[in-house]
């Protein structure tokens, strides 16, 4: 089985206001897949559907070679889950919570669990409901890892945690992955964190996948170029994928185009049309992520290779062209 997770054509409409439409996700085995998206884009919903906690209207979900929900009880036995909000029973103490959880997973490693409990400095006799946010986060990760899963599904596992705890939690994940070669599916808005260790990235927006590719490709493929003198109404048949286009913001001359698959020799394409490329900027993960989501994409400018974001006209984000500081890492 080459893919740990395969989702095809997922459709889910829990209410009139929100829908997941024709969602396709592929997570190769052994990958660390970062699932990015703004709040409300469907990250948690997708994860809940993956875990068989909700029933989709259509589509096919395969996890670790088994179908969800038909083979759910085998897939869940091999999946470590850290939900967005703590799911452990708050009235149990840490020790009790660990003991209860261990009974359900035959592959549980209790030696590792006790060791990790000490390393995380979790107070054994404190009720889960009374733990601090950081301790709760560590406990949830401990429970997910102690079962020695083949797949880790992590829903914003470090959200709201201080930097020290974040490091502890992610180090535990990395350590586990080095040892066991498990697959990790991690959703987050902490883009910088994901940038360091994910080798795949999937960007979701408004219930649809907007981009899915290896991390290095995402970081290198998407660039921002400044174009001066592009003729009006000139149609595209671009050698690159055009993800978005914005007029000059007044401070610097030229339009800003966000492109995918840029190669240096493509400047010739512009020269032949009478325009010049003044600047090519590399975008880091966060900038690339924001560009994907904020650029509106008029029909006329869809590039030939443009399998970039599919978004309706003028909805939501606006075209100010200045990445909002509120987006991305909090």
């Amino acid at each position: 089985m080459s893919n740990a997770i395969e989702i095809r054509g997922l459709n889910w409409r829990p209410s009139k206001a929100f829908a997941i439409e024709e969602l396709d996700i592929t997570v190769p085995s052994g990958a660390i897949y970062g699932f990015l998206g703004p709040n409300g884009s469907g990250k948690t919903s997708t994860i809940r559907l993956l875990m068989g906690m909700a029933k989709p209207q259509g589509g096919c979900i395969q996890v670790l070679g088994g179908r969800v929900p038909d083979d759910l009880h085998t897939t869940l036995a091999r999946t470590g889950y850290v939900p967005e909000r703590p799911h452990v029973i708050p009235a149990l103490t840490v020790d009790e919570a660990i003991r209860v959880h261990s009974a359900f997973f035959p592959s549980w490693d209790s030696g590792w669990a006790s060791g990790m409990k000490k390393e995380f400095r979790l107070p054994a006799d404190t009720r889960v409901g009374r733990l601090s946010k950081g301790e709760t986060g560590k406990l949830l990760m401990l429970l997910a890892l102690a079962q020695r899963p083949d797949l880790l599904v992590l829903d914003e596992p470090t959200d709201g945690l201080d930097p020290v705890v974040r490091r502890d939690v992610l180090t535990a994940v990395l350590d586990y992955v080095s040892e066991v070669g498990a697959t990790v599916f991690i959703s987050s808005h902490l883009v910088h964190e994901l940038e360091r260790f994910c080798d795949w990235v999937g960007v979701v927006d408004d219930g649809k996948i907007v981009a899915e590719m290896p991390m290095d490709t995402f970081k290198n493929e998407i660039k921002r170029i400044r174009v001066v003198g592009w003729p009006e109404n000139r149609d595209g048949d671009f050698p690159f994928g055009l993800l978005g286009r914005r007029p000059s913001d007044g401070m610097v001359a030229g339009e800003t185009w966000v492109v995918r698959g840029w190669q240096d020799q493509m400047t010739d394409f512009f020269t032949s049309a009478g325009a010049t490329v003044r600047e090519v900027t590399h975008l880091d993960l966060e900038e690339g992520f924001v560009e994907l989501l904020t650029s509106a994409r008029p029909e006329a400018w869809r590039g030939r290779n443009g399998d970039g974001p599919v978004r309706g006209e003028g909805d939501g984000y606006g075209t100010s062209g200045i990445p909002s500081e509120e987006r991305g890492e909090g």
Partner: protein
Amino acid sequence: MFEDIDPRSPTPLWGQIAARVRVAVAAGELRPGEILPSVRELAKRLRVNPATVAQAYRELAREGFVEMRHGTGTFIKDVGEARKDLERRLRASDLVRRMLEDGARLGITGNELADAFQEEVGSKVHE
């Protein structure tokens, strides 16, 4: 040695890690026979994907800078003076290229940069 690897740079992380090792070998900081941190250890320290570290080590092995001994670890090999010189020259070119790019963006010509360089080097000699 690895503290300043930058996930935001266009160079992939494995490339940055490999480059650090090459530079250290060229500068004599890492000597033949010395052992590099294990894949697991370095991945933990840098908080990167272990596959990234593994890829960096494989690249270094391919170029002859290290030898991966299964079960024991990854050891620095003697890559020879010529290769070390080459490495230093490559790094120097990189630095100069970056300087020229930055300069171009600020509107500073190559000649102006060369003059500034001479001044800096000159003042260092007199220190």
